[in-house]
């Protein structure tokens, strides 16, 4: 049914134009900068765009091609705005499990998949990569290739569709995306409480989890712990009966503001670092020189830091717990935007890049300076 009503007259298939543009780039030994809604243009190595001869704009390649609510599957062209997808899904009381950040209203599905950035519910509902079922890509030889499929379980061939999530357009143009969608929760409510320190907050979240309470997100900031519950109305409407009285109900808007970096913390224009690491560490980032502030998501496993840190000092600290640090916004002449790779992974990555994009057409040096 929704197959029909989703087809929009503005839909446009640009696959052929893309293939031609890539072929021309190969012939003229040019590099292409791939852009979707350009809502994350700041993300990745800042020297990359300057190395490109022209722009390949995916945002006009739009349209939801298939959506079957009872199959929990949606397929769309890469330039389709997330807002349009969210709108259609909401009409059917479904949503994207990865609840992607939309730093502007132009955020596209392709851009979300290429960046691999997931919203606040990541520990509970999975990542962008977890939801991807299939991709159609155009590789650096201008071949259109399909990996994965439209069914939830599929192990035929190497899992290149999930592999490409987060590759930042360095391996190929993501042309079409098939994702698994989930039913919306009947009710979501949020609560906040004061908390002495980070470790206490992490322990508190863990205790709630061990009680099997229907948590769906958490955020630790400025000695406050904010948590989100989602689930069946019957359970959530009465959830405070399971909490002690230090919890105050708060607005659900907090989470979309957090996701889209609209909170005060993100607004100040200083360097912003994004750290992925385990939750148990007792690392004290405030001891770092030039530390300003910190906000923690994903039950302690994603940390946003602001401050003009010494890059190597920060990386050393993160390395202690096998974590990784990414210079997310306002890179302050860093050597590495993303955590340096081990020699083995670097070697494999270089060869993988060579395999997908032998002429070096796409987004040169967007992730690392080596390719």
């Amino acid at each position, binding site marked *: 049914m929704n197959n029909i009503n989703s087809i929009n007259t503005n839909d446009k298939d640009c696959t052929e134009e893309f293939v031609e543009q890539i072929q021309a780039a190969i012939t003229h030994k040019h590099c292409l900068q791939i852009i979707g809604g350009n809502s994350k243009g700041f993300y990745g190595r800042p020297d990359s765009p300057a190395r490109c001869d022209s722009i390949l704009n995916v945002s006009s390649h739009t349209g939801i091609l*298939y959506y*079957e*609510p*009872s*199959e929990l*599957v949606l397929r769309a062209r890469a330039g389709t705005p997330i807002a349009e997808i969210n709108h259609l899904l909401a009409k059917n009381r479904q949503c994207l499990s990865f609840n992607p950040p939309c730093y502007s209203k132009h955020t596209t599905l392709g851009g979300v998949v290429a960046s*691999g950035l*997931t919203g606040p519910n990541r*520990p509970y509902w*999975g*990542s962008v*990569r*977890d939801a991807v079922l299939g991709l159609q890509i155009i590789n650096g030889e201008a071949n259109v*290739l*399909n*990996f994965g*499929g*439209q*069914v*939830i*379980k*599929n*192990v*035929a*061939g*190497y*899992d*290149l569709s*999930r*592999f490409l*999530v*987060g*590759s930042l357009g360095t391996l190929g143009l993501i042309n079409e995306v098939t994702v698994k969608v989930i*039913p919306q929760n*009947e009710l979501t409510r949020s609560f906040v409480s004061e908390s002495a320190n980070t470790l206490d907050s992490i*322990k508190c979240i863990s205790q709630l989890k061990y009680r*099997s*309470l*229907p948590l769906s997100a958490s955020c630790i900031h400025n000695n406050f712990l904010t948590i989100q519950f989602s689930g*069946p109305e*019957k*359970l959530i409407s*009465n959830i405070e009966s399971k909490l002690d009285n230090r919890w105050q109900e708060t607005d659900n808007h907090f989470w979309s503001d957090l996701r889209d970096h609209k909170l005060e913390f993100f607004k100040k224009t200083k360097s912003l670092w994004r750290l*992925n690491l385990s*939750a*148990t560490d007792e690392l004290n980032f405030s001891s770092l020189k030039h530390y300003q502030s910190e906000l923690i998501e994903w039950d*302690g*496993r*994603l940390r946003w830091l602001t401050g003009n840190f010494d890059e190597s000092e920060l990386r050393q600290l993160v390395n202690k717990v*096998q974590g*990784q640090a990414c210079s997310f916004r306002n890179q302050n002449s860093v050597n590495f935007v*993303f*955590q340096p*790779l*081990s020699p*083995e*992974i670097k070697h*494999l990555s270089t060869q*993988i890049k060579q*395999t997908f994009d032998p002429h070096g057409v796409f987004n040169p040096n967007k992730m690392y300076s080596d390719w």
Partner: protein
Amino acid sequence: MESSKSKLITELRLIVPSQCLLFEEEQLAPYECDGLSAYRQLPMLVVLPETIEQIQAIMKLCSQQNVPVIARGAGTGLSGGALPRPDSILLSLAKFNKIKKIDRINQIAVVEPGVRNISISEAAKEHNLYYAPDPSSQIACTIGGNVAENAGGVHCLKYGLTVHNISSLKIINIEGELISIGDSGLDSAGYDFLALLTGSEGLLGIIIEITVKLLVIPPKATVLLAAFNSIEKAGAAVANIIAAGIIPAGLEMMDQNAVRAAEAFAHAGYPTDAQAILLCELDGLAEEVDALTDKSYKILMAADAVDIKISRNDEERLIFWKGRKAAFPAVGRITPDYYCMDGTIPRKHLAKVLKEISRLSDEYGLAVANVFHAGDGNLHPLILYDANKPGELERTEEFGGKILELCISVGGTITGEHGVGIEKIDHMCIQFSKDELEFFRKIKQVFDPNTLLNPGKAIPTLSRCAEFGAMHVHSGDEKFPELERF
């Protein structure tokens, strides 16, 4: 070949203790096949290393001497992935059976590849945690084999496949290098090699350590067992449950042949006169489970279920599952041999696909028992045959091939969780285009330029496809034109 074999034995003796090296025919016999027993082949020798350094040295040696290496976990694979070659080493990971760490706060366990799937949940239980993916073979299969196949189970509708439940890996490549993939956070830097390695069927590297995610054991779980007098009605009930916004922890279907076999074997209380049964498990907090049980009960009733039983306690719940989990061995008791298929289809085509399978069953004169992970459209038709009857295996394989083509033609895939291995390698030529297969081959070369890791499995060569004479079905020459597709 004998001389190269004895030379290899001599060199391997310098690497592993003698009890870790098997080369006499009677020692090799237990390794001649995996769960796909129609294919058998003795390896040149079997090595059971005990340390990572030993594996590294073995790989270096094999790579220098151009000897193929085939990894083996428990050998329960159903697609012949661990089938040896006469010129290969079979590398058993059986001795890597330790759970190294359980971290309560991060809810992870670090385990060696030879640890059995169920052992992880058993060890995590004292922390009130468990490992969600539960293949029916979980008492035997290894976590290394699960990662290599991206195994699923009856609970993967809600909790995901292996790929969704692991967070980092250590592998050893064909040159003997140790490579760490993923780190302690949820996202890692660079390309997602964790996704690429998961389901790579032993073709890209030997998995030697896995960090798995653990979940808190839900305080309550309830199973509804619903009987239907037609498969179509059971199929419609599945779609209605999902459409109502319920994601059951498990949603399984069995047809009458499977129900009768399972009931005779496990005495789970299945109604043997039903054409199909559904098992629908709901888990979470008691209030949540009770609300969802109520809602599901109404949906099942509205879908014309003739009988619905609801488990009253955990004991009853496990009995309901016992029949389903024992379905394969149960079918094994009513037939000399069976051949298990593993296609996945968009659920809406279930009734049509089953009708076509039943037509093919008449055409080939071979009975079928159907077991499905209905929630995610993963079918396991079991074709019953007798390998001792001349020509019957060949007919069975041809029938199986038709089922795979049927799955592709409705927009599905040839394998949902058992892998391609040797079994479905020809049908890869139908599912993927020449360019796509060629691309897979290039990916393989990045990891294993001389094709020594599990050669001849999972990804067919283009010449093999030419020999098979298969065409890519996507491009219009549909095999089942009467079926609707998208």
